[in-house]
């Protein structure tokens, strides 16, 4: 009996799943499509999904009329820079907690996570004033610092869970084989943990790329990443749908692609290990 029935239910479930996921994905698809329309077609009262004159004019307009590349570059520097800097600080800490555990390790880990739960408005004013006094407002350096700090707990946490899976004996073997701590980390720990480190890096690039509190508050023209650049379209410019779509597409596509690669690690990183 199973075969006929399960084939039928497979068809039903497939249709249902594709319909629902298509609806969820539609706003992104629509943005991508609109970015190839002319402004007139974009606001047409009888919008068309595919039957229109495809054009790249919006992309060239966005690139020519606004310093798009500057903002793109700011996003790259801030997200990649903060993630690399974060790794540099987080790897030693995760090593310590995973391989030299004591009674306080768990509390320390929890405390680090708790800093992630501090609402940004709780420190908004001091950070703003400190940045003003240290001339860090609207600088990439300032944002790299902030992004590193807000994502550091997630990085330490993710690396900790990856390192925990490496058997202690392998590190002890390297010690018996005459490796010092630096050799132990570079020749043994890092190569073994490379996949985990890569996905930690990836997830943090994504989180930093999309961060939209501090990037909006601490930047103006110079250091504004894409989040802030796109926010500027909330003014009447946003009514130019095709251009808004083109700018949006360029801001989200790179990270969408990275995101699809890291979907498995996402669960681990974002649930802080509560779901495995």
């Amino acid at each position, binding site marked *: 009996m199973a075969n006929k029935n399960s084939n039928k239910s497979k068809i039903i479930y497939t249709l249902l799943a594709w319909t629902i996921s298509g609806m969820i994905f539609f706003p992104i698809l629509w943005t991508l499509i609109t970015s190839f329309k002319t402004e007139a077609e974009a606001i047409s009262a009888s919008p068309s999904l595919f039957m229109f004159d495809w054009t790249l004019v919006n992309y060239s307009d966005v690139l020519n009329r606004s310093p798009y590349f500057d903002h793109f570059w700011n996003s790259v520097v801030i997200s990649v820079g903060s993630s690399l800097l974060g790794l540099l600080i987080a790897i030693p800490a995760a090593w310590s907690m995973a391989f030299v555990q004591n009674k306080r390790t768990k509390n320390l880990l929890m405390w680090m996570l708790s800093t992630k739960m501090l609402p940004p408005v709780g420190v908004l004013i001091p950070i703003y004033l400190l940045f003003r006094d240290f001339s860090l407002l609207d600088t990439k350096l300032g944002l790299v610092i902030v992004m590193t700090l807000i994502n550091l707990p997630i990085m330490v946490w993710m690396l900790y869970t990856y390192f925990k899976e490496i*058997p202690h*004996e*392998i590190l*002890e*073997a*390297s*010690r*018996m*084989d*005459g*490796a*010092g701590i630096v*050799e132990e980390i570079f*020749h*043994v720990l890092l*190569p*073994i943990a*490379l996949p985990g480190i890569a996905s930690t890096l990836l997830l943090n690039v994504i989180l930093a790329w999309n961060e939209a509190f501090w990037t909006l508050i601490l930047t103006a023209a110079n250091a504004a990443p894409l989040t802030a650049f796109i926010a500027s379209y909330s003014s009447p410019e946003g009514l130019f749908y095709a251009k808004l779509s083109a700018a949006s597409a360029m801001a989200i596509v790179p990270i969408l692609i990275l995101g699809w690669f890291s979907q498995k690690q996402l669960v681990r990183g974002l649930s802080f290990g509560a779901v495995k």
Partner: protein
Amino acid sequence: MGSITLKQVTKSFGDVNVIKPLDLEIKDGEFIVFVGPSGCGKSTLLRMIAGLEDTSSGNIEIDGNDATKTPPAKRGLAMVFQSYALYPHMSVRNNIAFPLKRAKVAPAEIEAKIASAAKILNLGDYLDRKPGQLSGGQRQRVAIGRAIVRQPSAFLFDEPLSNLDASLRVNMRLEISELHKSLATTMIYVTHDQVEAMTMADRIAVFNGGVIEQVGTPMELYRNPVNRFVAGFIGSPKMNFIDVKPVDGDPTRSIGVRPEHLKVTQEQGLWTGKVGVIEHLGSETFLHVHVDGVGTLTIKDDGECPLQYGDQVNLTASQNKIMHFDKEGVTLASLSWGDNAVVAQ
């Protein structure tokens, strides 16, 4: 050279004393086995000798030099771990080369040493594979290869065979013994398996609760265990223990007979009982006989045993094979025991 001396060595985690003050002298070239139930401190002591654990007090001397505070890398010892602890991202060749590279050995010499280790351990065909592509036995060989190329003053083995299946274990046991004969380097071998201890060791140290109960050659431990614990731990199947009623002037509180020393007889013996489960192993037979007031006794009999479940049998053992223990479980000198009445029901 590879003599290791432990002087009043202790280890405590907080309030828990894992190793109580302990002295042991391990001679150069000796194969010594630390054996005992899990949690007896044998692995901890091995890791202390390796330098992977701190020593709480006392001294560890390697070749006459105090090495208590020396980091593991500088002790000149090699270790084979239970999980083999191979570097998963390196080929077999690089695994074996790793300690040599750390010691800044010249590349040509490294190649030569890898080649000779590969020959000894039959690894020639696997040198360019990763550990993940090897079977358990092959991984074990790589781990040993990584240890021997350094020409350490002593090898430390931490239950190296416990992850292998039974037949492979027998083979590796022989190979390690063979290796010891040809290298003549000190080996310290930790196991919970008394068969491994008996078959491989020059000397065995029996651990229990953080102390060494007895050190000696396998046959010394078998013939003259100092107490009930050692008597029960060495030998398979386990020694039968029978509690006896105290008699004035006789400190004996229990006696022990090894299964291989119990005989099934026609005439009246020391005990009479009913045969329970019979385990035929082909070359030998284990009988489990229920004796009223004593419990179940295990007997090791010939391969061809005609007895059936439920048969009534008489059991006996020669007096010089029966051990007597006092109320602390200490073995009593075997000459002074009283009459047979104590032994029989």
